[in-house]
C-alpha cells in the first residue's frame, strides 16, 4: 500500500465531516454571534439515534432520516429553549450555556443508550476502490461526495437565495434586518436547525466507517471549531478549511507519527491566527 495515497484518502474522508461541522458552526455563529459548543453533539445524537433505530431492525432508509431529524431537533431546541430567552446575556455567558447543553445531552445519551460504542451498516456496500496504492471504501466515496455537495449547497444557499440573504442580513445587523421585516428569531432557529442537520449528515455518513458513543460529540465540536477558526469563520472557506484539517491530520500521522498530530494541527491553527491578525493590522479585512 502507498502511505501517501492512503493518507490523502483518509484525510479527505475526515475532512468531509470536518467541513460539514465547520459550515454548521459558522452558520449558527453568524446568526447568533455564539460559538455553539454543543454543535458536535448533533453528530453524536444523529449517530446514536440511527444506530438505535437500525439496531432494532428498521431499514437504514428510515433510520438515517430519523437520525438527521433528531440532530436538527436537538440544535433547534438549543436555540429555541436555551439561547433565545437569554438573548440579553453577554455572548460569553451564552457560550457557557451551549457547553452546559453539550454535557446535558451527553448524560441523556449515556443514560438512554449506555456507554458502549455503536455503529450501523454502510449505505454504500461493496469492495473498496483501489488506485495508486490506496483503498477507498464506497462509503468513504459517498461521504466525500455527499459531504462536499451538502457543504457547497449550503454555501450557495447563503449566497444565492433570498432566505440565505436574509440569514446573512440577520447576522450582520439584526436590528436593521428586523426593521426591514425579517423575522430574525425565525432565521436564527432555521440556522441552528440547518447546522444540526449538517452535523447529523456527517454522522450518518461517517459512523458506519468508525463508531460513535455518547462522548463522541465534544471531539467533533473541537474539530469543527478548529476548521471554522482556520476559515476565519467564513462560510465559503469552511469547506476548504475542513478538508485541509483532515489532510493535515492524516499527513502528520503518516510522516511524523500519531503523537505529532495534535501539535502540528494546533501549530497550524496558531500560524493561521497570526496571519489573520497581520492582515487586520496591515490593512486587510477584519474577520468575524
Amino acid at each position, binding site marked *: *500500500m*502507498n*502511505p501517501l*495515497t*492512503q*493518507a490523502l*484518502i*483518509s484525510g479527505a*474522508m*475526515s475532512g468531509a465531516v470536518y467541513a460539514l461541522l465547520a459550515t454548521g458552526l459558522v452558520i449558527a455563529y453568524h446568526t447568533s454571534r455564539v460559538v455553539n459548543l454543543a454543535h458536535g453533539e448533533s453528530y453524536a445524537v444523529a449517530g446514536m439515534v440511527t444506530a438505535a433505530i437500525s439496531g432494532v431492525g428498521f431499514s437504514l432508509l428510515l433510520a438515517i432520516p430519523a437520525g438527521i431529524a433528531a440532530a436538527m431537533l436537538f440544535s433547534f431546541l438549543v436555540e429555541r429553549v436555551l439561547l433565545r430567552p437569554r438573548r440579553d446575556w453577554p455572548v460569553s455567558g451564552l457560550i457557557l450555556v451551549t457547553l452546559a447543553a453539550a454535557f446535558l445531552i451527553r448524560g441523556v445519551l*449515556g443514560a438512554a443508550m449506555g*456507554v*458502549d*460504542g*455503536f*455503529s*450501523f*451498516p*454502510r449505505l454504500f456496500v461493496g*469492495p*473498496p476502490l*483501489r488506485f495508486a496504492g*490506496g*483503498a477507498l*471504501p464506497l*462509503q*468513504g466515496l459517498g461521504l466525500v461526495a455527499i459531504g462536499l455537495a451538502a457543504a457547497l449547497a449550503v454555501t450557495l444557499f447563503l449566497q444565492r437565495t433570498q432566505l440565505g440573504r436574509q440569514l446573512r442580513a440577520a447576522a450582520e445587523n439584526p436590528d436593521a434586518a428586523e426593521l426591514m421585516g425579517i423575522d430574525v428569531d425565525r432565521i436564527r432557529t432555521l440556522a441552528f436547525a440547518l447546522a444540526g442537520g449538517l452535523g447529523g449528515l456527517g454522522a450518518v455518513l*461517517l459512523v*458506519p*466507517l*468508525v*463508531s460513535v*458513543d455518547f*462522548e463522541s460529540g465534544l*471531539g467533533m465540536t473541537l474539530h469543527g471549531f478548529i476548521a471554522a477558526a482556520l476559515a476565519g469563520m467564513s462560510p465559503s472557506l469552511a469547506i476548504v478549511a475542513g478538508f485541509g484539517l483532515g489532510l493535515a491530520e*492524516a499527513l502528520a*500521522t*503518516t510522516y511524523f*507519527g*500519531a*503523537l505529532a*498530530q*495534535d501539535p502540528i494541527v494546533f501549530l497550524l491553527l496558531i500560524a493561521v491566527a497570526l496571519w489573520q491578525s497581520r492582515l487586520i493590522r496591515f490593512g486587510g479585512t477584519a474577520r468575524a
Partner: protein
Amino acid sequence: MTLTRIVGLALFAAFAAGTAQAADPWVIGIIAPTTGPLTTVGLRQLSAVQWWEQDVNSKGGIRGRRVQIVHCNDEGSPEKAVTCARDLIDKKSLLILNSSVTGPIRATMQLVTQGPVMITPSPNVMPEASTFVFQTSPSDLALTQAIADYLKENHADSLAIIAATDASGEVGVASAAAIFPKSGIKYDLARIDLRANDASVQLANVAKAGVPLIYSNYSGAGAAAVVKSYSNLGLTQPLLISYANISDSFINVIKSDMPPRLLGTGLTAVSPELITDPEERKRIEYFVTSYEAWKKEKMDNLSLQGLGLADTAAAILTQVDDPSNAVAVRDFLEKTPIKSIATFRYSRESHIGLGAKDISILEYKDGRWVKAAPLK
C-alpha cells in the same frame, strides 16, 4: 414514659448496636472506569464482581458477614484513580480491586505501599514482589510470547502491530521489542491516538503484502477504529485483537465489519471446554450459568477477569483470620494457590498469578470464542 419502658428501650438499643457491629460488612473497594473510552473494560469486570457480591450474600455472606462492594469510577484517568484510591482507603476497604488500565493503576500503586492489598487483572502491570499489589492475569510479556509461539507454530516470521499512544500501548511496544526479535519474528509498528476514529493510515504503513497477521494491541472501545479501518482497506490477513477486547460489547461495535478471521489473546477459560482442571471448570460453568441469568449478558474475557478478582477476594475473606491486616493477606497470597478461572500462584518472588500456560490464541467463530485454527 415509665422507667420500665426506658430501661427496655435502652436494652433494645444496646442489643441492636451490638448486632450491627457483629454484622458489619466486609468492605471491598473497586476502581473501574464506567464512563469514558475504557468503559467496556471497567463495566464488565465490575458486573462480575457485583454478581459475586449478590451471589455470596444470598448464601449468607462470608463467616457470617455480608460483602459490600464500593465502586469508584476513575474514568480511566490517573488523577481520578488516585482520588478513588484515597476515598476507598478512607472507607476502610479491606482490599482494593483495580479494574482500570495501566496508567491509572500505576498511579494508585503509590498509595498502597503500606497496604491495603491491591489486586488487578491488568496484564500491563507487573508489580514488584515487595509490594502489596497482586496481578491476576498473565503478564503482557506472556501474552506477547503466546503470539510469538502461535506464529512459530505456523511457520510465520513477521507481523504488523498497531499500538495506542497511551501507557498500555507503551507496554505493548516494550513487550514486542523484548519478545519478537528473540523469537526470530520481524514486525512493523504504527501508533494510534486514543481519540482517533480512523486507523487506515497506520494500517497502510504496516500491513504490507505478505504480512500474515495484524495485531491490534489497542485496548478499549476505540480499538473499533482499527477493525473498521481494516475493513475499509479490504485487508484479508487474520486480525488479532488485544486481551482486553475479548468482549461482547466490542464484538457488537464491529459486527457489521467483521474481518474474515478475528483472533485474540485470551484466557483459556473463555472457552470452558479447553479447561482440564475439574474444579476450575466447575467454577466457570457455575459462573457462566448464574451470571448470564443474573446480568442477562454473556460472560467474556473481561467478566472472567472480574471473576478472578472476586474469587481472590473470597479466598482472602474466607481463609485469612484478619483480612484488615495487609501483611497477613500478602503472606497468604504468596503461600496459597487460589482456584478460580485458572489457579493463581503467587510467591515471594512473583506477584503475577498466571502464566503462558493459561493463555490461548482464540478465534471468534459462530458467536463464540474457540481455540484458533492454524494460520494460513
